[in-house]
């Protein structure tokens, strides 16, 4: 009996030590956590014997927590969107990456090399998704088709980030995101077509699935998820290109497991892992040598070549980080209300 209690005591005191030895990864919850756990983390643990713990939460929640823990980070690795990554970097929360320790990163697409602190993990697009069964005669060959009077009160867009439609409006006004003011009148002309603005992925899915907003500026991965659930969504890439979105990975400054973190990132860029991510999430691999299933590779919004990456509308992540507040405020004052 004494042996039993001693064994139990030893187990209890050893458990925290084992947890401390694990690599801690900060990422969004739900399917994003599962995606990394089932692909990168699984292979990383198999190769190194080191387990992976996850800290999950919303983009800004995790940013605030790490800001408060500056110098003694809660996680070793952080996944976040490219422009929010710049907020981490500007605040000195990310380590400057030594890419020589990430051999697989040599195959990264040019657009995925966001900064010296964070690199693209995978990509997706914000583009036009619509319910062809509810909009019988609708055709979307260009972003300008969204301005059709027949789409009055049928369109939804994200309320948390208007950068996509702001960049598109600028583009249609012969400007770019840096000179977005030139597209303001164009965007104001779209106002009658907006019916709602969605708050999060679940809200977007609900609005499309119920047909409340039969056309959306939608995240490609979300659209594919809904298609998988049986919602008849048609995803199109307009002739001007879709708006590129990149989720990134970085090592937290102050991480005591930087070497393992580099190994983790290198595993992330393993061509097979990248192909798996493309298969599971219908996203684009960040490296150009991933062997993506041809059926996945031909899907709208999945790109595997350098030329395809360049065809997308790419808003500079640093510009987006600096302009998001201004854009959001203007959008709220002039379009949403």
């Amino acid at each position, binding site marked *: 009996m004494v042996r039993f209690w001693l064994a139990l005591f030893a187990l209890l005191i050893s458990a925290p030590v084992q947890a401390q030895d694990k690599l801690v990864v900060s990422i969004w919850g739900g399917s994003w956590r599962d995606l990394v756990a089932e692909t990168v983390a699984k292979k990383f643990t198999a190769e190194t014997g080191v387990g992976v713990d996850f800290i999950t939460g919303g983009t800004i929640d995790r940013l605030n927590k790490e800001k408060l823990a500056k110098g003694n980070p809660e996680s070793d690795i952080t996944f976040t969107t490219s422009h929010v990554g710049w907020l981490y970097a500007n605040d000195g929360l990310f380590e400057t990456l030594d890419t020589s320790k990430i051999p697989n990163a040599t195959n990264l697409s040019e657009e995925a090399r966001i900064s010296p602190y964070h690199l693209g993990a995978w990509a997706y697009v914000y583009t036009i998704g619509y319910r062809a069964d509810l909009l019988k005669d609708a055709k979307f060959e260009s972003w300008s088709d969204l301005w059709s009077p027949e789409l009055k009160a049928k369109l939804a867009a994200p309320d*948390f980030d208007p950068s996509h439609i702001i960049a598109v409006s600028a583009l249609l006004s012969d400007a770019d995101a840096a000179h977005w003011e030139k597209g303001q009148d164009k965007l104001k002309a779209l106002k009658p077509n907006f019916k709602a603005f969605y708050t999060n992925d679940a809200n977007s899915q609900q609005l499309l699935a119920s047909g409340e907003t039969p056309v959306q500026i939608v995240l490609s991965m979300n659209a594919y998820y809904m298609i998988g659930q049986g919602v008849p969504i048609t995803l199109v890439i307009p002739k001007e290109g879709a708006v590129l979105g990149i989720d990134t990975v970085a090592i937290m400054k102050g991480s005591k497991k930087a070497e393992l973190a580099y190994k983790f990132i290198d595993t992330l860029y393993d061509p097979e892992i990248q192909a798996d991510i493309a298969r599971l999430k219908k996203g684009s691999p960040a490296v150009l040598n991933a062997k993506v299933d041809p059926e996945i590779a031909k899907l709208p919004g999945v790109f595997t070549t350098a030329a395809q990456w360049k065809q997308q509308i790419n808003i500079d992540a640093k510009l987006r980080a600096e302009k998001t*507040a201004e854009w959001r405020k203007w959008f709220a004052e002039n379009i949403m209300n």
Partner: protein
Amino acid sequence: MNQQPFLRIFTTPAALCALGFVAAMVAVLQYSLRAYVPGSLDPGGFTLTNFADLLKPLYARVFLNTVWICALTAVSTLLVGYPLAYALVHIENPLAKSALLVIVVTPLFLGEVVRTYSWIIVLGNNGFINSVLRGLGLIEQPVQFMFTTFGVVIALVHVTLPVMVIMLAAGLSHIDRDYLRAAESLGAGPIRAFLTVTLPLSMPGVIAGVTTAFAWTFSAFATPQLIGGGRVNMISNLVYQLGFASFNFPFAATLCVAGLALTIATLSILRLAARPFENIEAH
């Protein structure tokens, strides 16, 4: 005097909580007076620009909208809740009384998001109400409930109804029934007895219920966010959008401070308006 040590022990946790709240409020106030620096999480120097920005039509409109939605919700909840509270107090059958109480109180046990999603299913274009109306041949095109103030108020009434009913029932149960019997013995019918005896004597409960519903609705977030779909915005939604979508924490803090000031001002006005009813004795 011997009770003093116990009093100190018991009030210490409350005092610590209060200290925490005060510290948080000071932090919010401090943020509201700082400049927003694009691309950075740290605020800039001290400025009053954030408060000047509040005068823009958009923000003034959202503040007015918030007060309007709160007022509509409080009054609608009162109209729905009063008969329920009246029935709860006057029903003699214990089984029926328990059933009514369960129906009234159950929404308190559901999360706000779950409750709101259920209303999306009910109010949507292909939702329950529109399906029934279409099935009965009363409409051809769906009635637009979603993304309207009406839809938001319906869902908010559901949120505030349990509290309103409980407060009204407490007020109604304190009315001495001898007053009603006296009114009836003097020839008053049920309606007149209700209007001249029950209603005036239940005013303290009405005021408490309306004030609570109003204050509670002021901080509503998930319901206007999901049912309003960005078309119906309350102050909390703006705070979220500015803080969590735009990273403009200083201006979000300014909205919080202004919202708090507006809540205090509105509740003070309500209290002043209700003062004549405060001295009504129920028994």
